[in-house]
């Protein structure tokens, strides 16, 4: 029983990271209807920025904040320079754009900071959380930050004008323009927010997986799995999906013989396919009611 609870809690903790990545994926998917394959690399790059700032002596939380600002601006810049010109291009052109971005960011990070793994600090410490052996303070911190982020996003989208405008632009671009919304900038804003959310995910997971240019590869696939499971149209779904994937992955790795650590990743992929076949809209993807 102890083992079970332990695995569930650990699953929830890593699930928090998947949830963050899934949130970032959903943000961009909502804005432009494409999956951003480079989301993980962007997050990794942001994490390196944070690391670099700390190397230069900037205190943790300042580095964290500056990294978010940098990532937000960087996300907007990427949209303006690379994806705005591709807005009317076919899907495959966009996919090629994402892959190019993936390769560029990965190489630039490798070139700048090389491929050796680096330690990354955690602000939460790694002592047992509340004296329990089951979960560390860092893991508890990851869960807390993710839930806080979800609440902030919810408040932003439900109760601010700009949040409402972003939702409108995502749902019906033409109608949004007809009420005076600059949909093009709403998309850029979505990119900026996604990049900042991704940066948070990267910074949170770096103490666990260590910092290096390929650190997000696996994480992004779990993030996709989480987003698809929860429904690509729902931020709440993305977070729930993230936690579910984290727990599922851990339990399968522990209890199904022969799976172990090696086969965890294929499980995520199998999950994506199963969900897409059985429930294409995902668990929380709201079926849209339409009457003519």
């Amino acid at each position: 029983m102890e083992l079970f609870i332990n695995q569930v809690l650990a699953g929830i903790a890593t699930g928090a990271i998947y949830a963050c990545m899934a949130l970032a994926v959903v943000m961009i998917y909502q804005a432009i209807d494409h999956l951003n394959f480079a989301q993980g690399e962007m997050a990794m790059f942001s994490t390196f920025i944070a690391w670099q700032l700390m190397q230069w002596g900037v205190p943790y939380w300042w580095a964290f904040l500056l990294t978010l600002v940098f990532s937000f601006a960087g996300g907007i810049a990427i949209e303006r320079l690379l994806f705005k010109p591709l807005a009317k291009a076919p899907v495959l052109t966009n996919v090629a754009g994402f892959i190019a971005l993936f390769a560029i960011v990965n190489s630039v990070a490798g070139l700048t900071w090389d491929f050796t793994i680096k330690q990354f600090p955690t602000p939460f410490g790694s002592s047992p959380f509340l004296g329990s052996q089951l979960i560390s303070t860092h893991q508890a911190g990851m869960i807390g930050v993710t839930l806080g982020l979800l609440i902030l996003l919810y408040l932003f989208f439900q109760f601010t004008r700009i949040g409402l405008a972003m939702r409108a632009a995502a749902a019906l671009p033409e109608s949004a323009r007809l009420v005076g919304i600059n949909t093009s900038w709403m998309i850029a804003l979505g990119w900026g927010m996604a990049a900042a959310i991704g940066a948070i995910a990267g910074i949170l997971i770096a103490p666990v997986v260590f910092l290096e240019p390929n650190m997000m590869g696996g994480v992004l696939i779990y993030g996709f799995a989480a987003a698809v499971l929860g429904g690509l149209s729902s931020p709440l779904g993305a977070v729930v999906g993230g936690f579910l994937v984290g727990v599922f992955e851990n339990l399968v790795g522990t209890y199904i013989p022969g799976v172990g650590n090696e086969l965890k990743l294929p499980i995520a992929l199998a999950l994506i396919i199963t969900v897409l076949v059985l429930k294409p809209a995902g668990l929380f993807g709201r079926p849209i009611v339409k009457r003519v």
Partner: protein
Amino acid sequence: MTAMLNIKDLRAYYGQVQALHGLEFGLNEGSLTTLLGANGAGKTTTLRAICNMVRSTGSIEFDGASLSGRSTESIVRLGIAHVPQGRGTFTTMTVEENLQLGAITRKDKAGVTSDIERMYDHFPVLKERHTQQAGTLSGGEQQMLAVARALMLRPRLMLLDEPSFGLAPLIVRDLFKILGKINREDKVTILVVEQNAQLALELADKAYVIETGRIVMSGSAAEIAGNEDIRKSYLGY
């Protein structure tokens, strides 16, 4: 009266296909004008050209300033509300959110709140359903919502694309009555594109008839309605 909207030599294109061939007309401030014509005559294209939603050449002036080269959203911000064909309802959002979206460019919070209440007075059914997903409303209710959403902009000019489409005749009458009231009381200049010529002519004070991308007839609504030849050859009733 000076013309609020002045259109000269308007040509519009869908790819290689030309849909408007040198359209000319004007709208006086405070008028209620209808643009009539058969399917494919270019009525919708005309409205879309005003809001720069289709490639066009020629001159469109609003209050003496040219609209060419402006983006759709910046044209809307000048006070031109457009209720598109198919209504453009944000179906996944609530009725109230739809109304708020209509006023998204406005900064006066108190004014927006009181305008929402005003819309609920105009359209009581919207008040009953203000927390419902807009997609669950009936066609007529959605059309009311679309008009209300456009009014939330506090527009000076409102463009309506076939508001009667798919609605029962009784509901169309209600809707047109409200449009007339808005025109008189709120001093909103209105341009209605319609296939239902008979009803539109009862409502409007001025009418233009469009055929294959050109204005072929213009006059007061009463004149056009009273001319049997025009009615038979262009309006089909």
